[in-house]
């Protein structure tokens, strides 16, 4: 039987274009906030998730780098990478270390700083999560792959774009009162539908923008948790993988890694889908959110849009989703994003979500995807 894992502290930087701030500074800032929130000075190890820093900053070795910045050199510290789920990969590594009994307290950080690259450089850098020799080579982009899936989805289920384009509208609604959100304002459906194509049918407002950010968690075991005054939640994380290119899979409209990691996580947490009161889904594009909702079993296939239309995913709905704006409106600083998702669940469950507080937030689930669900992490947080 493995040890339980608790989140004892979280730290978030505002997601923004931080022109005057470096990658090192951002991840150090988030880390210090998390350590202060938990009320700890030292940890047994550090894991840092980042996808783009080796390309955009030409900076690797983030483990030792962050340890040094924090004055914690000598602590084991390792960088981990799983494309846009790199942050969740860091959480996974940290959680497993606590579970195994080898660590009492672990600092987990996710960071990326996209504003150091030009738009074309960032678009190219995002392809390190795909098969470069095949898909990258022909000039395909992350958004063009999403667009193909989007087209297939609309054809298969005979659904209009305006049903799916409601997702970014929901996200912006939820970001309005989120202090750390990149775009804390509402948008209209027409704004989404009139925004230019990135790759048709995918429109600019159905994607995310250049974003910088870092988020951090302090994970502890039960014994350490008891000594700390900070509010805590219990964490379970599971993962699964799939082919890098969704178009080599039997069905590009189904994410088996999401399905598998969801059922593994629910089983380990001994919870059913009805016990999940808040959801953080991975809306790198509107269509990815839709497919994640369906593959995880929170919606029937081809029907996720109905949850949107009926308001089930709103803060007052039956399954509030992306309660601080999700990737679209809180922002998507790639490697940091999944740590933001988990930190936001923690704020909700510990009743520190401010104006975005959801009633009855006793358990929440975060879906963090690398590439087009080539890696899927499912994290469940619950009240303790």
């Amino acid at each position, binding site marked *: 039987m493995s040890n339980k894992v608790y989140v004892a502290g979280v730290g978030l930087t505002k997601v923004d274009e931080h022109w005057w701030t470096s990658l090192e500074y951002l991840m150090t800032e988030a880390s210090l906030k998390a350590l202060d929130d938990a009320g700890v000075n030292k940890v047994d190890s550090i894991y840092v998730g980042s996808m783009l820093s080796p390309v955009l900053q030409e900076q690797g070795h983030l483990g030792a780098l962050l340890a040094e910045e924090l004055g914690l050199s000598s602590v084991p510290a390792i960088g981990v990478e799983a494309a846009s789920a790199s942050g969740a990969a860091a959480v996974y590594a940290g959680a497993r270390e606590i579970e195994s009994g080898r660590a009492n307290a672990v600092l987990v950080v996710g960071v990326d700083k996209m504003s150091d690259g030009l738009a*074309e450089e960032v678009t190219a850098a995002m392809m390190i999560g795909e098969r470069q020799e095949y898909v990258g080579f*022909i000039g395909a982009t992350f958004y063009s792959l999403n667009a193909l899936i989007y087209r297939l989805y609309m054809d298969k289920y005979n659904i209009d774009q305006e049903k799916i384009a409601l997702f970014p509208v929901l996200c912006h609604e939820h970001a309005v009162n989120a202090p750390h959100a990149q775009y804390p304002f509402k948008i209209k459906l027409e704004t989404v539908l009139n925004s230019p194509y*990135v*790759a048709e049918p995918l429109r600019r407002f159905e994607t995310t923008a250049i974003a910088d950010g870092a988020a951090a968690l302090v994970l502890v075991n039960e014994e350490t948790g008891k000594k700390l005054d900070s509010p805590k939640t219990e964490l379970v994380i599971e993962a699964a993988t799939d082919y890098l290119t969704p178009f080599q899979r039997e069905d590009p409209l189904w994410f088996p890694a999401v399905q598998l990691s969801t059922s593994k996580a629910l089983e380990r947490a001994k919870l059913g889908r009805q016990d999940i009161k808040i959801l953080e889904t991975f809306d790198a594009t509107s269509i990815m959110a839709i497919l994640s909702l369906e593959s995880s079993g929170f919606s029937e296939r081809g029907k996720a849009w109905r949850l949107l239309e009926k308001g089930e995913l709103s803060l007052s709905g039956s399954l509030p989703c992306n309660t601080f704006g999700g990737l679209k409106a809180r922002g998507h600083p790639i490697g940091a994003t999944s740590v933001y998702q988990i930190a936001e669940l923690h704020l909700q469950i510990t009743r520190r979500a401010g104006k975005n507080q959801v009633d009855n937030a006793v358990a929440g689930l975060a879906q963090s995807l690398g590439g087009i669900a080539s890696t899927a992490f499912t994290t469940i947080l619950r009240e303790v």
Partner: protein
Amino acid sequence: MFKIKVPRYWRHKDFRYRLNAWKCNHCGETHFFKPLICRKCRSREFIQVSLPETGKLLAYTVVRSPPEGFELQSPYIIGFIELDDGTRILGQVTDCQPEELKQGMRVEATFRRIREDEEDKIIAYCYKFRPVI
């Protein structure tokens, strides 16, 4: 975008120039580059095949926000194609405007320039698809 380096580029020319690929002897899964073990059934026996050069267009899109190295080509079309043997493949679609395309239409492979390395002037070639004339 990665720089075009000759050895790295050259080792994959059999697929990119001629659509030569590998099929698993056990389950029939197509692998574009020489595999050691089948990703689907884990068999280790393969036969080399020439993929059919014609197929149908399952879906297409237009890249309007290009990656580094493709700025001058944008907008260009990316298609998802089912070849006549059932193999599914991604490729650029050329010799036409997006308005001329229809899902389900017949396309054929053609040999084209994909990109030129601006610094070293190395030209990379690859298959692209075009509507069957």
